[in-house]
């Protein structure tokens, strides 16, 4: 499978990202309060947590998409403003129904009025296995195909900070492995926060693994699996970490 060229492949490592005082409340009920979080520069941080605990909300806050009732400061390690340097992949695919798959993947360039790099977009689509459907409307795609299109769109953005919300949840085991590997390569050197509900996925892809749990939600201490990702599932010691993760996930029942 051809690898899409990444403009930042040889770019310097992305700076770290620090968020402090993050809080969110709905109608008096706090989802989380006064959270602090640091994403190591150039590393992938995976975020786990029970359903409904506030992972997506946290991601949106960091992406600068605050809701009413949300507070917090986010800053980049290089002191530059974060604005315009974040790529965000929502939990929903959010494909635009009036653009075909290729159009959706090049949406960022379209929006910014940049010349459209169809070649790179096609390479990206090829990498996620969607080259044949580049001309179809999103309505003609299966759930997993939509998710892969959204992933391709995010990777096209080529930004130092990447926030992804359950990007592989609708993929079968094989496709998932393929796409994980692709993402792992293309995200190398970037500062990534990846929400997932699969502890094995977190242990495979993350330099650091965080667990958000409790009510109001708190972040557990960062877990750093040994060795650089991607790690094969057979790696010794991962099973112990898996048990730790499960135990932390269970700290508070889902609401």
């Amino acid at each position, binding site marked *: 499978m051809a690898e899409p060229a990444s403009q930042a492949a040889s770019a310097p490592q992305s700076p770290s990202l620090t968020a402090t005082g993050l809080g969110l409340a709905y109608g008096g009920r706090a989802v989380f309060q006064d959270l602090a979080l640091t994403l190591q520069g150039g590393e992938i941080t995976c975020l786990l947590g029970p359903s409904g605990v506030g992972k997506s909300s946290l991601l949106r806050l960091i992406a600068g*998409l605050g809701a009413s009732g949300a507070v917090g400061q986010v800053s980049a390690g290089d002191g530059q403003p974060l604005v315009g340097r974040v*790529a*965000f992949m929502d939990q929903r695919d959010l494909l*635009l129904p*009036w653009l075909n798959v290729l159009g959706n993947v090049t*949406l960022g360039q379209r929006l910014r009025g940049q010349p459209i790099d169809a070649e790179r977009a096609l390479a990206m689509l090829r990498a996620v296995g969607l080259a044949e459907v580049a001309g179809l409307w999103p309505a003609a795609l299966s759930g997993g195909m939509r998710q892969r299109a959204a992933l391709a769109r995010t990777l096209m953005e080529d930004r130092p900070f990447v926030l992804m919300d359950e990007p592989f949840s609708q993929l079968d085991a094989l496709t998932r492995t393929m796409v994980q590997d692709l993402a792992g390569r293309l995200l190398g050197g970037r500062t990534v926060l990846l929400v997932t509900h699969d502890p094995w996925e977190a242990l495979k892809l993350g330099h650091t693994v965080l667990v958000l749990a409790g009510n109001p939600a708190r972040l557990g201490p960062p877990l750093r699996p040994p060795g650089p990702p991607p790690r094969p599932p057979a790696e010794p010691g991962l099973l112990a970490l898996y048990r730790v993760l499960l135990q932390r996930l269970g700290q508070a029942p889902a609401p």
Partner: protein
Amino acid sequence: MIAAARVAVIAGGLLLGWQALVGLLDLPHYILPSPTRVLRAGWERLPLLLGHAGVTLLEIVLGLLLGTLLGALAALAMVRRAVLRRWLLPVVVLSQAIPVFALAPILVLWLGYGLASKVAMAVLIIFFPVTASFYDGLRRTELGWLDLARTMTAGTRRQRWAELRHIRLPAALPALGSGLRIAAAVAPIGAVVGEWVGSSAGLGYLMLHANARLQIDLMFAALLLLGLIAVALYFAVDRMVRRLVPWQAEQALP
């Protein structure tokens, strides 16, 4: 072919119903003439009718084009600028309450008795449904798409414009389509009302005339022709609107 057959059947059915109405209720011909009478009158005066119909058709088309353009622009303006939304909307609503005879002298003073004043009057009637529907559509964009666009354009200077152009606008096309359909249906009456502003040609003028001369059959012949134009226009616009949103799945209705 099937559509044409259907239209023929509808037309036949309507004419039959009309004939039955006249017969059953014993309506005098100077209130509602029978279709045979109207068709005969129409056939005899066909060149006259077609001449006037041409004038009205021109007004309809111009009114529809300008009205759609103005309506769409007004909706876009209201979505982009809060100040316009607050101040323009009440004025736009107000404009819909002005009857033709209040406006006619002003229009004529500024635009004369030619085509312009009629088209202006038609535009006033046509643009509102477009504005209202399109504006509603532009406001109701899926929030997730807007967030997505915001992260993608953050820090650039074209943020608002890009959002409008690439997200809100295409998302509002179905709503614009609804507005266009209504506009197409009211465009003929818009042109006729425009002709009340003062005219010497057009189906509205002809109808006024025939009505005053008690040539009710001629008036209804003109009305029939106007109705034909209205229905043809509506279905033409309907078809165009469907093309506007090709990604929208056609629903199988019962």
